[in-house]
């Protein structure tokens, strides 16, 4: 152990003598490890969402697609009050259709910005949280009572990036996106970094992240009290139905047709997921390709730098070997050097991904990189004969 500590000091001296090379190595590895972290995160998220969708208990989810024509929308808007009443009737029909589980989540872009990003307000019903469990790092999750609040302070769960802007247990006055009135919001919990859900209603993005937003509970009993076309439109069109019977959702479509409202069509979760997974797969493939290219160049750079360093230091290693060092100790000196580079490069991963699964996977990947980068230099050292090299290097 004492001998290893001695090698640690020599490794530090080596690094200090080659600051520039090691700085470049560090930068390369930071890029590689961060990319690895992002790919890991992507894979973990994909896996998590597959798991969260398992909560559908084998039932099919139906996502409504609004195929209403522009003329029809104009007609509905021209007869706004009548349309609002019909929409309320449709919404009540949807809610009272006991055979069908559903969740609703709507979002509004808020006028506030944080770190250059627009703050988003998400409004979700209780069922949403049953399906897409959202973990908090501080405070508490929503409880059933939160979804029954009609007046007074509204509890909110704040996304990770906004935790300093909207601090836990503080009360803020924010414009209510639904009513347009100033409303008191109390921060009851801070969401984990990258809290998200599979956005089945959004064909453009696979996952919606809550990092730059906050979620407030949707009191479904209040929906029918809003005389607002757009609110009702959003709620109806952003509701996902979970059922194993297509007839259940067809009854909603028929009801809408009967009321002369939207031309709703439902696509199944399978169809929607197929599109999402394909897009997700493509994204991961692209990331892995970019990662691989950078990794190949970085590994080549690291290995050649290490080989060069080993060649350059060979006379020194032989002096140590002559003085009683073993090959193992010399190799440990190289391992310590590359490990220090990796530890430094790993710090940004911890800063960005905290102590998450992505950080763990990146750590495992780091160990694999250390292993691969060391194969050639260690092989070179291990197979070098002291006296042969003393002749070559020191020209005795």
């Amino acid at each position, binding site marked *: 152990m004492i001998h290893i500590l001695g090698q640690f000091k020599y490794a530090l001296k080596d690094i200090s003598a080659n600051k520039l090379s090691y700085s470049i190595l560090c930068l390369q590895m930071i890029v590689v490890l961060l990319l690895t972290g992002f790919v890991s995160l992507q894979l973990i998220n994909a896996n998590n969402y597959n798991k969260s969708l398992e909560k559908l208990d084998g039932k099919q989810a139906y996502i409504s697609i609004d195929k209403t024509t522009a003329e029809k929308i104009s007609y509905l808007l021209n007869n706004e009050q009548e349309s609002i009443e019909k929409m309320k009737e449709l919404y009540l029909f949807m809610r009272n259709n006991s055979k069908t589980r559903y969740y609703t989540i709507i979002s509004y872009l808020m006028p506030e910005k944080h770190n250059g990003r627009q703050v988003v307000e998400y409004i979700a019903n209780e069922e949403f949280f049953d399906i897409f469990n959202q973990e908090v790092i501080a405070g508490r999750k929503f409880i059933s009572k939160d979804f029954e609040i009609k007046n007074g302070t509204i509890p909110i769960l704040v996304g990770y990036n906004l935790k300093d802007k909207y601090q836990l247990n503080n009360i803020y006055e924010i414009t209510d996106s639904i009513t347009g009135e100033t409303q008191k919001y109390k921060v009851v919990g801070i969401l984990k970094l990258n809290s998200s859900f599979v956005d089945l209603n959004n064909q453009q993005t696979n996952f919606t992240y809550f990092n730059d937003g906050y979620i407030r509970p949707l009191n479904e009993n209040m929906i029918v009290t809003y005389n607002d076309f757009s609110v009702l439109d959003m709620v109806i069109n952003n509701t996902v139905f979970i059922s194993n019977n297509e007839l259940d959702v067809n009854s909603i479509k028929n009801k809408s047709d009967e009321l002369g409202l939207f031309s709703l069509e439902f696509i199944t979760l399978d169809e929607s997921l197929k599109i999402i997974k394909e897009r997700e797969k493509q994204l991961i493939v692209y990331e892995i390709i970019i990662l691989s290219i950078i990794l190949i160049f970085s590994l080549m750079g690291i290995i050649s730098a290490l080989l060069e360093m080993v060649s350059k230091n060979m006379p020194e290693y032989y002096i140590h070997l002559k003085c009683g060092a073993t090959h193992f100790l010399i190799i440990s000196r190289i391992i310590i050097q590359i490990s220090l580079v990796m530890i430094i490069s790993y710090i940004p991963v911890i800063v960005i991904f905290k102590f998450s699964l992505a950080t763990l996977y990146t750590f495992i990947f780091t160990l694999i990189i250390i292993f691969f980068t060391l194969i050639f230099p260690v092989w070179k050292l291990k197979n070098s004969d*002291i006296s042969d090299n003393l002749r070559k290097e020191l020209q005795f």
Partner: protein
Amino acid sequence: MEIEKLRYKRQFKKGVTILMITLKNISRAYGKGKGTIHALRNVNLKINAGEMVAIMGKSGSGKTTLLNTIGLLDNSFEGEYFINDINVKKLSEKQKAFYRNEFFGFVVQDFALIEKYTVFENIKIPFNYTKKRLKKKELIERIETITTKLGINDKLKEPAYNLSGGQRQRVAIARAIINNPNIILADEPTGALDSDNAKEIMNLLKRLNNEGKTIIVVTHDEEVSKYCDYVINIKDGEII
């Protein structure tokens, strides 16, 4: 193999010094096929503790290979090599490293100092691999005692590249004796020095020999061989 390990362990525990080194039919070849160079051919040799021996021969005669073999730096020889009664071919790499650290001190023509290290750091290297643990204060005292004896005490903080040839060789000798080894292997120790410095270095080695150390010097210089008890001549890898 097990017997060798037991012998090694017993000797290590007792702290036995090297009394005798014996080489039996040692051959060493470099390369393969037609390009094979036979550096040593059936070398038989016995050196007792306390002797100062010169190995003389022309360039390429195999004298350095012989010295490297004795110093356990070359493991690819044929034949048998005994340190006391231990067959070194049967020692592990770790055990050979221990022997190099504990029983041998190396001095070479171009000093083999690490330029970027200070004199102190260069001298300290063998101490990093020894099993005898000294406190930092004791280590400093020992280095100071040796360097004072060698006249380089004022250079301890200097980087190696700042030293003259004679000073460098003294540093190399200080490093070679820091662990108090039994045998000093010197490969052309005066080869890179002027005549005055060469004399001083040889006087130094002789002094160490008088203190009980076995000195084996590889040289092609007649003057150097005069300091030794006897000369082993080597030609084309064979002792003549």
